[in-house]
């Protein structure tokens, strides 16, 4: 059966990847018949209407799913296709109440024009009452145009089946969340990330850069339980009434937050066994928030320090020294960690930045135990970032040697030497402030 998925016209490169991740999660056989990133309508082949409902049920970038009744590049072609494709279904809907809508993409229609289009389908011969709210069945004519072109590019007649889960974006809106920080992920993309990683009931997830918990909250919405860690304990502890835990309380999801602890991914306390179903993270890029790991810049501090004859690091209020670290090395560390801790087919969904004009420069990190499932790009004005999704391959053991990083393992001293992205952003900012570049 052919169905039409109606996408939103944002985050275009994420849409198909999300749909495929959901199909894989629900074990739905999905064939994408026609999809183009600059149009909202995607033609797919599915086994049943039930599969269509399930597929769209937790989609964020889909708006809804529809049963295809006809397709054509002109109304003559569309009517002909409707007769051929769905003639046998007409009688089923003869007596129920119904509603007809015409929706234009990149095209505005007068009411009179819409009415004319609707009336051209009178041969369907529906006898049920026409109602505007809560009709038994809803039909849509989608008229797809190229920008500022009068003649439609494609026309569809569809029967509405189900809406997506897109409404929850407003529920988790950062503006209404009590505890956030400067780098909290917006609710839409956090939910998409959770979908890519296939968060679901019964699963255990981990976010190694948990911050204020945007990702664990999104995973919790889909039923997964999470643990999180962060090198900065202040973000987890927050204030007595306003902290990571209170965010879960706000959404009545407290049962899906397991624990937060303070740790550094390069010295993680997690047992390196295959125990996690998914890892979701937005590692610090080293620009707005520092990218640091435990240790000292100059390699000093190799001896324990005593204050008044007591070990300093066991005293109240002790702050361990931290040093800047290379972003590339951190990405390799994350992949290595994921390879060691994910169960077979467990997923890692990770964000990484890239400068626009050196798109090819920032190589996508790879690992022999992880298969790249999708690469999605969110472009900004001067830079862009990518969501990388990996799947843990079954039957591949982590080679003992991978622990030594392929790149420089972050032994430089200054943050700019270690992190080419940070350097790029700062160089660019300097050019603006010197008046060499203008915005």
């Amino acid at each position: 059966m052919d169905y039409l998925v109606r996408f939103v016209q944002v985050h275009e490169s994420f849409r198909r990847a999300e749909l495929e991740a959901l199909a894989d999660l629900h074990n739905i056989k999905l064939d994408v018949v026609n999809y183009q990133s600059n149009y909202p309508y995607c033609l797919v082949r599915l086994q049943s209407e039930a599969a269509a409902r399930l597929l769209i049920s937790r989609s964020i970038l889909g708006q809804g799913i529809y049963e295809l009744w006809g397709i054509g590049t002109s109304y003559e072609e569309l009517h002909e296709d409707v007769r051929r494709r769905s003639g046998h279904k007409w009688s089923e809907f003869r007596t129920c109440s119904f509603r007809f809508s015409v929706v234009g993409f990149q095209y505005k229609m007068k009411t009179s024009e819409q009415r004319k289009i609707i009336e051209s389908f009178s041969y369907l011969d529906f006898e049920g009452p026409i109602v505007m709210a809560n009709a038994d069945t809803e039909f849509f004519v989608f008229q797809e145009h190229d920008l500022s072109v009068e003649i439609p590019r494609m026309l569809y007649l569809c029967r509405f089946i189900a809406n997506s889960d897109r409404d929850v974006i407003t529920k988790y809106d950062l503006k209404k969340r009590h505890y956030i920080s400067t780098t909290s992920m917006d609710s839409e993309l956090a939910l998409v990330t959770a979908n890519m990683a296939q968060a679901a009931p019964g699963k255990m997830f981990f976010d190694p850069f948990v911050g204020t918990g945007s990702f664990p909250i999104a995973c919790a919405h889909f039923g997964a339980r999470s643990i999180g860690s962060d090198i900065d304990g202040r973000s987890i502890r927050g204030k007595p009434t306003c902290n990571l835990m209170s965010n879960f309380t706000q959404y009545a999801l407290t049962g899906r937050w397991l624990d937060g602890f303070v740790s550094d991914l390069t010295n993680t306390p997690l047992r390196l066994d295959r125990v996690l179903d998914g890892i979701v993270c937005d590692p610090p890029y080293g620009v707005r928030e520092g990218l640091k790991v435990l240790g000292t810049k100059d390699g000093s501090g190799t001896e324990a320090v005593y204050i008044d004859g007591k070990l300093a690091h066991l005293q109240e209020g002790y702050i361990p020294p931290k040093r800047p670290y290379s972003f590339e090395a951190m990405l390799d560390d994350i992949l290595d960690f994921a390879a060691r801790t994910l169960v077979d087919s467990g997923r890692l969904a990770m964000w990484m930045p890239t400068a626009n004009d050196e798109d090819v420069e920032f190589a996508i990190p790879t690992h022999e135990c992880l298969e790249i499932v999708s690469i999605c790009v969110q472009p900004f004005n001067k830079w862009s970032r990518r969501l990388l999704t990996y799947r843990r391959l079954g039957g591949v053991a982590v080679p003992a040697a991978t622990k030594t990083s392929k790149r420089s393992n972050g032994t430089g001293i200054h943050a700019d030497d270690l992190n080419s992205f940070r350097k790029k952003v700062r160089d660019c900012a300097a050019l603006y402030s010197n008046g060499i570049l203008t915005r």
Partner: protein
Amino acid sequence: MKILTLNFLTCARKTCKSSPAAFPLHPRDAELEIVETEFNALFIQNILPRVEWDALKGLCTELGLTNVPPEAPEPKELFDTSIKSAGIDEKEKEPTQLTRDLHNLLLETTIQSGKLVCGNCGHEYAIKEGIANFLLPSHMV
């Protein structure tokens, strides 16, 4: 910090990772609290094979908790199979008391404050308000 989380944690020092003595961490001066939380039998079922049972037993003995089965329960013990009726959905299976006890032990029993000590190097990690701190001083990195 939940008992379940403790079962996934070792000493953070790289030199301890390969030592069997570094897992599990030993609680000291632990203040326990029961925090009720949403019950989900599916989660217990999925997580059970990933729990190191001997470590869990050892930990519970140290904490004075006695309600731990001597052997890791089999998956079939988690759901009541006595009501045999064909066509019962996976999701509608009735969890046993054992599953509820495991939920209570693994997810509702928490350490609010205290210390976690590595059996290999002896380093102590503090737990305050349920949040453990695994950051290391520079001479241990």
